[in-house]
């Protein structure tokens, strides 16, 4: 076994996360799920608005939701790292984990890019909704769907690995 993974797995923090405390893994993964739902959901709602749903919403007025979305991302970064510390081998040896990490980076970058467009929008916000912004919104929607698929499958690919089925075939 990789010495770094062994070191992580043997640490007190890792053992606490894997342990019996309801404040450990159960609370960490629940926070991760709540913030995932809010971040992916709110970002998708804004994407839908950009793509034409609920056209009455003034784009610039969506601004106050961004700090909440960034807070959700911050909580997910922390809880995500804690879960990797709890199960380092399970996560870091699974190629799907790195795909998920890439999708997180993509999703967050798109929140930032689309956020800039939303911030730039004025009362007559429609004019700033260029074809490019619409493509960003569509990419963001596709990104969140892919990220959720990858996140859910991390659980199962690990189980399949234990059964001797390769994680990605």
């Amino acid at each position, binding site marked *: 076994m990789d010495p770094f993974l062994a070191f992580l797995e043997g640490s007190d923090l890792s053992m606490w996360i894997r342990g019996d405390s*309801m404040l450990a893994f*159960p609370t960490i*993964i*629940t926070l991760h*799920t*709540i913030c*995932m*739902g*809010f971040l*992916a*959901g*709110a*970002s*998708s*709602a804004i994407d*839908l*608005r950009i793509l034409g*749903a*609920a056209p*009455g*919403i*003034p784009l*610039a*007025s*969506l*601004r*106050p*939701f961004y700090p*909440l979305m960034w807070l959700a991302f911050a909580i997910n970064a922390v809880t995500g790292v804690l879960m990797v510390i709890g199960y380092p081998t399970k996560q870091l040896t699974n190629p799907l984990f790195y795909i998920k990490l890439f999708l997180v980076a993509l999703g967050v970058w798109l929140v930032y890019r689309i956020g800039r467009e939303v911030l730039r929008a004025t009362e007559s916000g429609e004019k700033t909704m260029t074809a490019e912004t619409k493509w960003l919104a569509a990419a963001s929607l596709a990104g*969140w*769907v892919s990220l*959720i*698929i990858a*996140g*859910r*499958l991390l*659980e*199962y690919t690990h189980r399949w690995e234990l059964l001797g089925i390769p994680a990605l075939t």
Partner: protein
Amino acid sequence: MDEIAPWEQFVRGTALHHFVYLNEPWLWPTCEIIHYLGLSLLLGTVGLFDLRVLGIAKGIPPATIHRLVPWGVGGYILNVLTGILFFSGHPDQYVYNNAGRLKALLMAIAGINILVFYGSTAFPEMKKLPAGADAPMRIKVIAGTSLAIWVGVLICGRMLTWYRPPFFH
């Protein structure tokens, strides 16, 4: 567990139970992915509407952001359908489970809350609120209840794993 209760025998005798049971390896992960997409859609759209009513992003006229709610209803329908499949497959793990029971109770309260909102004068009153307006306390209580209940439902869903009955395999 000594004997299987009649209601459980009934569920286990349905064609749906056998379908889930026989296709579990691919069906269960697929349904979980859909369940997570649905919860994100619900939390993102209904959550943003609730937050606006509670006073965040007051620049949005509530009626305009309410037009995102049908997307949340779509997410909810996805979750009811996948939830029925989960329940048909392993009914005992949800019924003999305090997290499962609390989840059902919270969903019933959410239903009552929705009836109160759309069945009372709260809904037409909300529709008249212009941008910048503070919602009346009564409507804020309904929105706050909605937000708290859906987060509670999500927490209970995550907690199912740790409150499974001991005889569940």
